[in-house]
Structure formats: C-alpha cells, structure tokens
C-alpha cells in the first residue's frame, strides 16, 4: 500500500506500528520525499506486507487513526491458504511439474511441501500448502490441481469447507 504522511520525526514509526498490532509482517518499505507547496514537506511511503486473513480493514482503520493518509492499496497477494494431501506416484510423475503448474499461474503458489516416500514401487503421500490472493484464485488453483491429479492418477484429498 502507498501511504502519505508529514515528514516529521516519529511519523513513519507511528504508521508502521499498527501492522504488527494486527499480526502483519513487513516485507519491504520504500520511501521518497515529495515537495508539496503549502502542505509542507510530505513523505510518501510504499509498504509491501503480509497480513493474516480478514485483517486488512482493521489495519486501514488503525493507520488512519495515526493521522496517516492511505493513498492507494495495491494488489492483495497470497492471502488465502489451503492445505491438501496428494497420494500417488508423485516422484515418477515429475513432482516439479506438479508444483510448477500452480506456481506458473502467477496468482497462486505452493508454499509448503512435505513428502513421505515408502519403497520405490509404492505410492508416496505429500502435504501441500497452497497460497492464493483470494478465494476465486484459490478455487482456480484447486481446479488445476484436480486436473493434474486426474492426469497423473493421484488421489487429491481436499479440506472440507462448509457454507459461510
């Protein structure tokens, strides 16, 4: 997100504090000074951050309470997480490719992979953590995974998600 604040001591710290309060994680801070005539010296800051699900509106409120102006909220990235289990000949069927099919979408990523491999002739089982920007993208990622599973004869065990 892009923030605008007075270029005064303590302002940046005040603007960033709410992020940790909502359990967020700062990934990058980029700032630049703008000259803005009558409103004096302003500081423009871009922050890339990771937030727990559903906390964005809390963060916006808290930042505004600090008297900081939010100019723009960019793309939400990878906020939605799902764990699935895949059973099959994962190695023989190119595990890298299986993961790639999700990663190459650009909107979803395999961020965790735990695999157990019994004897070479037996099927292996893996736990995959998938992250996506939002629910719709996650559903699309799952659809890709379902297709790959059909192709490669995997059993895909999806989480049970109930009606909201």
């Amino acid at each position, binding site marked *: 997100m892009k923030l605008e604040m007075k270029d005064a001591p303590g302002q940046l710290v005040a603007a960033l504090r709410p992020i940790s309060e909502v359990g967020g994680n700062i990934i990058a801070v980029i700032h630049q000074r703008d000259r803005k005539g009558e409103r004096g010296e302003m500081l423009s800051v871009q922050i890339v951050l990771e937030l727990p699900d559903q906390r964005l509106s809390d963060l916006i409120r808290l930042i505004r309470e600090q008297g900081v102006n939010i100019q723009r909220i960019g793309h939400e990235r990878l906020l939605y997480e799902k*764990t*699935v*289990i895949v*059973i*099959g000949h994962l190695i023989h069927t190119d595990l890298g490719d299986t993961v790639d099919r999700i990663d190459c979408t650009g909107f979803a990523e395999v961020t965790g992979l*735990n695999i*157990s491999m*019994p004897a070479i002739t037996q*099927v*292996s*089982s*893996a*736990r995959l953590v998938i992250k996506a920007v939002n629910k719709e993208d996650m559903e699309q990622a799952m659809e890709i995974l379902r297709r790959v599973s059909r192709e490669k004869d995997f*059993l895909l*065990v*999806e*989480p*049970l998600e*109930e*009606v909201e």
Partner: protein
Amino acid sequence: MRVAILGMGSVGKGLLQVINQKDLGITVTAVADSKSALMDRDGISIEEVLEAKKIHGYCGDTSLSSVDVVTKAAYDVLVEVTPTNATTGEPALTHILQALTRGRHVVTSNKGPIAREFERLHRCAAKNGVMLRYEATVGGAIPVIHVLQQGLAGNRVRAIYGVLNGTCNFILSRMAAEGLSYEQALLEAREMGYAEADPTYDVKGIDPAIKLVILANTFWKKTVQLEDVDITGIDMITNDAIRLAEEEDCTIRLIAEANPERGILRVAPRLLPLSHPLVVEGTLNAITIETDLAGEITLIGKGAGSVETASAIIGDILFIRDFHAGSHKKAP
C-alpha cells in the same frame, strides 16, 4: 397397526424381536423370505416364526412367496427389508409399487428402489393417498429424514455433509488410531463383520453415494441419480497421508457432500480438523445439515445394526399410525 414384513435377514429379524418385546401396538400379519411366506390376518406368532427360520432356514409355507404377501395379506403397512439392488432396485421395487397401488403404506430400509425411482414411487404413493417412508435407508438409527422433513420444515437446506458409511469410517479411524495400513484395517473390518467379503460397494464410495442421492432427493430435487454423484473411494488412502494430516491437527474421513448452491454432489476423502464434529470414531455415522433458519445441526449415531435399523423402521411405522391415522384404505 398391522404390518407385513418382507425379508428375514439381520434387519427383519431385529424388527420382529423388537415388536415382540415391546408393546408398541404393532401386529405382524405376514412375513416372507426368499423361499417362503406366512400369513395370518389375526397376527402370526413371532417366536414361532423366528424359531422356524432358525431350524429350517425358511420362515413359512414354501408354496407362498413375497408377492403373495404383498397382494393378498391383510396389512396396513408393508415393511420392505429385502437385499439392496442398486441397479434395478428389484425385487423391492415391484413389492413397493404393488403395495402402494393396493393403497397400503410402505416403510423400507432398502436403498435400491428409493435411490433409483424416488420420484416415481412418491408419485405412486401420492396418487393412492398413502405414505412411503424410508428413514432406515440413510444413517441407520439416525432420524435424519424426520429431521429434514418434519423438524426442519420451512427451512431451506443449504448443504449436507456426512459420514454415511460405517465401514469406511471404521477403516480410516483404525488407520489413524493404530497406524494400520489400509489393507490391515480392511482385514480387521472383515473380521469384525463390518465389511462384506467383497467390500467394493463400501470402500469405493458407492454405498455412501447412494445414500447421498436419497438425501438429495429428499431436500433438493427429486430427480438426482447415482450417476450425478462425483465418487472417490478410500482405497488409495495411505497411512502416511493420515500422518501428514495429523501433523496439521487434521485427519481424513470419507465425506458425502450435497450443496445445491454450488451444484456439488460428491463423495470423497476429505481433510478435517480433528476437532470437527464429523470426525467420529469406528462405525458411527454423522451428518451435518446447514440451513437458512436453523444454522448448523449435526446428528451422530449408529449407522447400521439389526436393532438400530429396526429403530428407524419403527419410527416410520408409528409416524404413519400417528399422523396418517385412518386415511389408509382398510384391508378386506
């Protein structure tokens, strides 16, 4: 209330014993098995017929058949508890249609005809002014059909999720509890009498899919067929997969899911948190119903067994007596 019972297997015998032991106001006027039948308009002796079945392997007169009972015996309710045939629904389909056409109520535990011909059977019952009840077809002793039809009347069912097959649930919970392989757990299920010699119907998810069809027909639309269900069984589940699930405080259960809003009809192994109400142990069944007014309701209970299934059948018989009194045609 006079009942005729077709089928003297585990369910039929359990039902006869319960009727004999409890003073429920139910008189058995006819019984039939695959080889014989027995009729008496004043009521047969339940003890004698159970004894005869034990000694001879058949219950009555070998010159009579189940069809004689359906068409000639004096009864108010036909109880159809012959074996399930998921493809044709027979012989139960013919039995049920004949009884309904004769103006008799029908209570059944037989999934075949209810899943295959739901709409046709209900039309036939309505046309003849009688009731067709099938509580025992889904979830054994759990009164889920009563809950859907009576208890939640006026609600819109948004989704149903359930553990509808005790054999699969037993296998998965034993794999989790004892670290057994799928093959070992299946063997144990066989030894305990929970799995058939040919376990295909259960482990491939067909049995829970048939029950899902019955539930969907009850609360969603009357034309759902087995072919509409996306079915995955449990026979590929590994012990490693269950361990990987447990590391995340989850486990794997075979879940039947019907969601009209999303057009989902699916039976598949799913990941569930260990604390989830549908994570039940052993042969138990569990069903969660999500509705617009009541919110979420979960029912847990025994999904099979002779007396447990008889409980569901008796609930249906007494429901007909209490809520449909006098509107059936009197038998001649």
